């Protein structure tokens, strides 16, 4: 009933498959650029992006802004770039999925300086691009209940 461990393992295998292809072992920093717009432009080469089509998992409110769990998945994606739009340096990672990757999915934990939108951009195998964003609130806390 509790599938998460298996999902986790599967993600691990997926990552191993990525490694095996030699296309990208570790997450690479997102395109080194100043702004979110510039990073997206560098990733897409200026191509149009369509909204949606990426599962972006993130808490609505971060329990600890220093380590916020983020999951991205887009079936048929060759690569997914993750950006934290409100961080001093928005680039988080670009995940590239090789031919042997079982799923185009990845998870990581990131530090968020403040409430902001997390942006994921996927490059699909057909050359098209997709984009989604999700707000993660970073709060002082207390006073609830």
């Amino acid at each position: 009933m509790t599938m998460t461990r298996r999902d986790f393992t599967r993600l691990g295998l997926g990552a191993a498959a990525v490694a095996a292809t030699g296309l990208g072992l570790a997450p690479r920093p997102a395109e080194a650029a100043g702004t979110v717009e510039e990073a997206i432009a560098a990733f897409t080469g200026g191509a149009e992006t369509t909204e949606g089509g990426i599962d972006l998992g993130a808490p609505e409110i971060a329990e600890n802004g220093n380590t916020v769990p983020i999951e991205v998945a887009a079936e048929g994606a060759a690569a997914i770039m993750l950006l934290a739009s409100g961080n001093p340096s928005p680039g988080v990672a670009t995940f590239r999925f090789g031919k042997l990757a079982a799923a185009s999915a990845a998870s990581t934990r990131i530090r968020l300086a403040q409430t902001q939108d997390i942006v994921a951009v996927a490059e699909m195998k057909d050359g098209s691009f997709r984009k989604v964003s999700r707000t993660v609130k970073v709060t002082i806390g207390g006073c609830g209940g």
Partner: protein
Amino acid sequence: MIARRDFLQAALAATALTGGGLTRLAAAQGLTEAGLVDMAPLGNVTLIHVTDIHAQLVPVWFREPSINLGVGAAAGKPPHVTGAEFLELYGIAPGSPEAHALTSEGFAALAREYGRMGGLDRVATVISRIRAERPEAILLDGGDTWQGSLTALRTGGQDMVDAMNLLAPEAMTSHWEFTLGIDRVTEIVDDLPFPFLGANIYDAEWDEPAYEPYTMLERGGAKIAVIGQAFPYLPIANPRWMFPGLSFGVREERIAELVAEVRDEGAQAVVLLSHNGFDVDRKLASRVEGIDVILTGHTHDALPAPVMVGRTALIASGSHGKFVSRVDLDVDASGVKGIAHRLIPVFSDVIAPDPEMAALIGMVRAPHADELAEVLGSTESTLYRRGNFNGTWDDLICNALIEQRDAEIALSPGFRWGASLIPGADITREDVFNATAMSYPAAYRTEMTGEMLHTVLEDVADNLFNPDPYYQQGGDMVRVGGMGYRIDIAKPQGSRITGMTLLATGEAIDPARRYSVAGWASVNEDTEGPPIWEVVEAHVRARGTVRIEPNRSVQVAGGG
């Protein structure tokens, strides 16, 4: 379909008796146990819901809020309807027992007529009466059960665990339970004779489910799945260091997966036993298909009829033992065919105490009897907590903090738990603990700049008034003593709070100046200071008789 008719009949019957301002005895005589509890049965499955009892073993007064604003899609919809508008919406006569139970209208006067409400021995009687008619009824506890009184604090929640075990629920979920600390929770849960459900509680390191997500029950020839959802923002609203290995969150996708899973296992009815808070559940119901009933909690709302979101019925059963909800379902192989509901107000002068539960309550309170009963002073004002921006209990607490801790400004968290007192009542130590008893009570004194104070107010306001319920935490606004402000709840975070003023001088708060600030219930570990109940006790003893002047220090805009 809904048992609205039953409710209205009871309300009308009671109205006929109370129109002339009858004495308390007469008012009570007009009500009967059967009249309060019984309803026309429906179908083959009965749910009984209690939630947010906050360790109230004995009857209390509890004033519902007069201000409970909703934002976004929830604006103006129940439970964000109060007072006369609430009575109008549900067709309840002013002055009737239901009017007293469900609104703050004429609270103090009606409290004298109708007496206190709740008491777990009366709740036990209500449950026994329902079970006598429906032996397979499913009792569910929505959590916030083990915290909120002196005896719960002194016994690490054991008094409530023993009392609830006697009631024998089928499952519970949680929030304040975790403020007993993870070791104590684990100790209790290991021995609990029913599941402690929390589909959204995960091991923070491994991202794996940490508690059972659901229980499957067979009743009346039907399979019923009960999924439990703990308060999503425990590590944010309460001290994370008390349960460091756990992660929570709304986890909407998880709930959707579980609904599909239990349907695959043959569930003909799916119930979510939730501590999300009403607006979070309303959004969840609009986005996750296949939940028949959400038993809501956390936000302490009491609604006399279900709120329907698509095919999902949202039930709001109040708090502090004041109400018990009965939900009858007509379930067959194809699912839920019909629903009937009654919100049962537990008038303690009308519903007889269950002898076995009364004996248990007497036993757990006996070692603390002298401490509980000690009179510290009295009040000329109604003391209550609920309301979005202030309540007289917190005004009293803020006054105590300013005087006893020599501060310019006081902060008291926007908790929704805490019983009320009526004018002329003694203030006993039990009463003070009913408004303060919790496990991180240190009354700190610190310095904050005006800018920091603004940031804190903006942060808390967004937890209450973010238009997306998934970003709300379900508490009320932090209460402020010594400082006034203006709030526009319709504005975005960062621009809601303006006009911050130091009340002592009438001067605008200077963003750069440092102010002495006293408060309590900090979520930070190693917060120093005396427990808040000692601060309040010293203040009440010094005053003898407490009087709370009307609080006009918060000006509200954007609420209508």
